[in-house]
């Protein structure tokens, strides 16, 4: 496991072991080829890489939406076989919310599927809704919410599951800079409190530096791998104006630019 890092006692919560994936049979191109990855318990792991390199695909394998063509995806030592609440997903885009359910009904979807009473669902959702400032909006429908509020709904829907891992696919990618920055701070604050394991995908290098314990940089597809894992050893809460922040940003930017250039060349 090349991406595991240093310490010998490191026992990952999530691991990709020699994972390869392609859509379809023999003739289909490999999207991922021999990917190794290990994410520690309580770690905030950020995945970056050129567009179309297979970040969402890797997340889908961990979520259980897709299955590896070769290799294994393990959570807590067990292979992933199907989707489940212990691996809650915050989806790329807003179309995963249910427009016919209110905010509270959306965030308690998993509790309802688990057969909890209305009162119990309400009781569990309340602190999380308060945490992200949605308590006053719990009877609204998604169509009545701003983009930032919808992503908060997605976040709470995942948080109420008390999952082992949160899988976040560019959760703030579609938001304006101001809202994005507010949500990044909110997420950082929540994570510093609960220390849930997170796999977080982004295009935004500053976002990666702000949030990550470690950043995995993927190569341009096809046959992508995680070419390097960069630890971000900055104290929290982090500030963008910290000179060390700039240094980490520069390093990641260089790694990513290299891959994006390669992607462009290959595309021609």
């Amino acid at each position, binding site marked *: 496991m090349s991406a595991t890092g240093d310490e010998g006692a490191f026992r990952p919560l999530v691991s990709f072991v020699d994972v390869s994936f392609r859509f379809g049979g023999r003739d289909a191109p490999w999207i991922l080829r021999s990917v190794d990855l290990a994410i520690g318990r309580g770690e905030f792991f950020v995945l970056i890489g050129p567009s179309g390199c297979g970040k969402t695909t890797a997340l889908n394998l961990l*979520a*259980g*939406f897709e299955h590896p063509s070769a290799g294994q995806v393990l959570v807590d030592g067990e292979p992933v076989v*199907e*989707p*489940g*609440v212990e*691996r*809650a*997903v915050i*989806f790329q*885009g807003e*179309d*995963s*919310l*249910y*427009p*016919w*359910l209110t905010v509270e009904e959306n965030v308690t*979807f*998993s509790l*309802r*599927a*688990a057969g909890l009473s209305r009162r119990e669902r309400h009781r569990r959702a309340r602190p999380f809704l308060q945490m992200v400032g949605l308590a006053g909006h719990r009877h609204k*429908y*998604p*169509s009545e919410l701003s983009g930032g509020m919808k992503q908060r709904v997605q976040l709470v*829907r995942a948080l109420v*599951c008390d999952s082992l891992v949160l899988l976040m696919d560019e959760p703030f990618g579609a938001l304006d800079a101001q809202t994005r920055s507010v949500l990044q701070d909110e997420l950082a604050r929540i994570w510093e409190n609960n220390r849930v394991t997170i796999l977080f995908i982004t295009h935004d290098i500053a976002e990666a530096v702000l949030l990550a314990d470690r950043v995995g940089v993927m190569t341009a597809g096809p046959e992508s791998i995680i070419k390097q894992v960069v630890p971000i050893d900055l104290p929290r809460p982090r500030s963008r104006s910290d000179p060390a922040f700039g240094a980490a940003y520069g390093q990641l930017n260089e790694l990513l630019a290299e891959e994006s250039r390669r992607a462009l060349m290959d595309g021609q």
Partner: protein
Amino acid sequence: MSDSSALRLGRPAAIGLISIVGGLVLWQAAAAAFDNVLFPSATDTLQIFFAQALSGELWIHIGASLARVFAGWAAGGLLGVVLGLLIASFRPVRDFFEPTIQFLRFVPAIAWITPFTIWAGVGEVSKVMLITYGVTFMVMLNTMTGVFAIAPNKLRAARCFGAGHAHIFLYVTLPATVPFIVTGLRIGLGNGFMMLIAAEMLASDEGLGFLIFTSRLYMATDLIFLGILALGTVGLICDYGIQAVFKRGFGRYLRA
């Protein structure tokens, strides 16, 4: 109701009213250019409307037609929703029915009028069957389209958050499909009226189709126009009714 919401309701209604009044004026003007026997005017038709409404004749026709169309529409709607959901949700069921559906798509319901009449007689049963068929098909196709249109992330989210097949079917697939079902029911009602008139023209002794068809034999164009006017009005009221009922009862499922 606040001022602004009264305005919101009032404005489209006012514009709609203008279109109706405008249509009537245009009709009156156009009719003036023709022989009244060939093209009765709006006022001629209004006259015969009052005569027929007062004698009760008109209501008998409307009642007979409405009863048939409603029976066929309700049966067809229910059947269409159930079939559409089942066919679209379960792959083997879909694969099994796909060729049949594609085949039947090109056989207009009217083509079935003779076999249905031979099998079920000239009475109410064959008429309702014909309407049911036309409605079922339209509702089923729309329901299927609705199921196919569900964003994959909605289904993935449901699986991720612990919903089993039955839970997904009841609490994701079905609610997500409601807007398409409503559209299917509305278009289906139009199909129902089409089948209704065809069936009534062929064999019946009351109903709006009967009124239009028999009036032809006496060159009673004003009665024909009355029949057409009644048909359109009844259809329009039914359509508004469907929309209102769904907005009230299922409003949350019609949100974007």
